[in-house]
């Protein structure tokens, strides 16, 4: 009477689809680029000091990229943490962990399904944000060619491809945050503490970069990996930061997942 993990995963997604929290996160992911585009439409100014800021008025392709820069500090980590920090703790809160653990599913399966569901949601949020940003950006500024960070011309088709790839590269550190969120959710057994804890870990990592003497650590901080996608927008493409993002993020995510799994497997389910 074994149940496949895909079944458990589908039910985890079903739970997410039935919770307000999910729509709060996805709503924010869609709303922020729209608000950004509206602000652009009503004023001529633009954040010229950030990469692609000065192209915001010339092409819609710039908006998703500027959004990735702004979103790295707290927006995307918060949207990610909202679900990742809740996905185990909510079961503690509702007392439902004992309900699902006394059926025919092993704890490993429940954990794997939850981790995958939280990751699915995070990727969906980024994708939704990117698509909305392209749509809202081109509604305001039109769909025109983009200028790369190396100053070269990028056609609209190639620009769209590069924006899509940037979103993919951007999801790598987001998935690491998902792992941290699930770990805190498992350990704290409290949704609010886990969400805030995940967000705090993001902010603290950002703070480390401004401490004198620690600048050597910068390439290995999780927050730095949010900039890896910029390698795609150089001519030729600079793969080094992207490769580094993958292994640095794995250094954060893999221990977090293992620790969370061990805690989840061994813990006494004595609440609720």
């Amino acid at each position: 009477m074994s149940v496949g993990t895909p079944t458990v995963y589908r039910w985890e997604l079903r739970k997410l689809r039935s919770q307000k929290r999910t729509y709060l996160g996805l709503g924010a992911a869609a709303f922020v680029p729209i608000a950004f585009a509206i602000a652009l439409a009503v004023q001529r100014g633009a954040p010229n000091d950030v990469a692609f800021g000065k192209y915001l008025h010339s092409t819609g392709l710039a908006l998703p990229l500027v959004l990735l820069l702004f979103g790295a500090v707290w927006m995307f980590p918060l949207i990610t943490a909202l679900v990742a920090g809740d996905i185990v703790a909510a079961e503690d809160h509702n007392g439902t962990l004992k309900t699902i653990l006394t059926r025919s599913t092993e704890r490993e399966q429940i954990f794997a399904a939850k981790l995958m569901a939280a990751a699915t949601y995070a990727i969906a949020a980024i994708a939704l944000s990117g698509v909305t940003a392209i749509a809202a950006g081109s509604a305001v500024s039109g769909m025109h060619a983009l200028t790369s960070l190396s100053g070269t011309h990028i056609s609209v088709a190639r620009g769209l491809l590069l924006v899509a790839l940037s979103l993919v590269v951007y999801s790598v550190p987001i998935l690491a945050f998902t792992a941290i969120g699930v770990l805190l959710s498992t350990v704290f057994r409290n949704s609010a503490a886990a969400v805030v804890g995940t967000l705090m870990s993001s902010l603290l990592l950002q703070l480390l970069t401004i401490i004198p003497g620690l600048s050597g650590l910068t390439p290995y901080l999780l927050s730095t990996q949010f900039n890896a996608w910029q390698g795609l927008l150089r001519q030729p493409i600079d793969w080094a930061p992207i490769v580094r993002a993958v292994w640095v993020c794995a250094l954060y995510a893999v221990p977090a997942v293992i620790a969370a799994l061990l805690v989840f497997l061994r813990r006494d389910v004595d609440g609720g």
Partner: protein
Amino acid sequence: MSAETPVEVRGLVKRYDGLVAVDRVDLTVDPGDVFGYLGPNGAGKTTSLRMMLGLITPDEGTVRVFGRDPQASVDALEGVAGFVEAPRFYPYLNARTNLELCAALDGLGAGRREIDEVLDTVELRDRARDRVGGFSHGMRQRLGIAGALLRRPRLLVLDEPATGLDPGGMRDMRQLIRNLAATGMTVLLSSHLLAEVEELCNRVAIVRRGRVVYEGTLADLRATAGTRYRLRTTDDSRAQAVCQAQPGIESPTLTAGLGISFQAASERAVAELSMALTEAGALIIEMAATHASLEDLFFALTEGAAGEGAAGERATGGGPSTSDVAVAP
């Protein structure tokens, strides 16, 4: 450890921060039993049940359900269903969806028809489309039973199933349990209510501060108490002295206004006592046998001095240590 024995627990221990919640508990539930796990709140009943369902890890001892270890794999729970404390469901999903989720995680292929059936059994069919978040305590208890029945259990584990229900709900819940037991299902139910256990169960384990102080039938427990006699005479203080001197008369106690209460080794000793009283000039007004109530026995085991002193002793039906059980005068 037999694969036919629904529950076999040996030497089970669970400690929390130095406090022993479950203290060397042995328990055997046989097929077809409606087994009452009886004790005051905080006696460690729920903790024991959690270990039987594999939710928490024992510090010592073994649990076997149908011969398998629930700590090792969830496969051990095949044929086992139930809940500890209150049953919990996803408040944002409706009753039917919650049951669908349970059925999916069971992998038994229970479909719409089975879900309708169990909803009918607990009389929740008309509320199936309502979110569980808006359910009353009693409806959640019933949904908990429905969720358990979906697993087609051979052993049903219920933790205080009637607690918190209104009198009508309690009656319905007990009727439901009786109906399920009548189908041959083994039921292990915990309760702090003696009357509930007396009504439903053929065997009980009485637990006090984490330890089983009695295991057997309630009839055997009642039989161990012996018969007490109530005595009123024209001169109770003289009668008290006679009782104390009379062979075969035990623990006479005099309560002002109520007369004397004593235990007798035999009916012959009682007859001889009546002669002695008459000779001593304490004329009998009333002498009657009274049976100890089960409640007295239960309290004596779970909170009285005998329970305290004999906490280390394990009382068994008809065994010698239950003769220590004092009935409160």
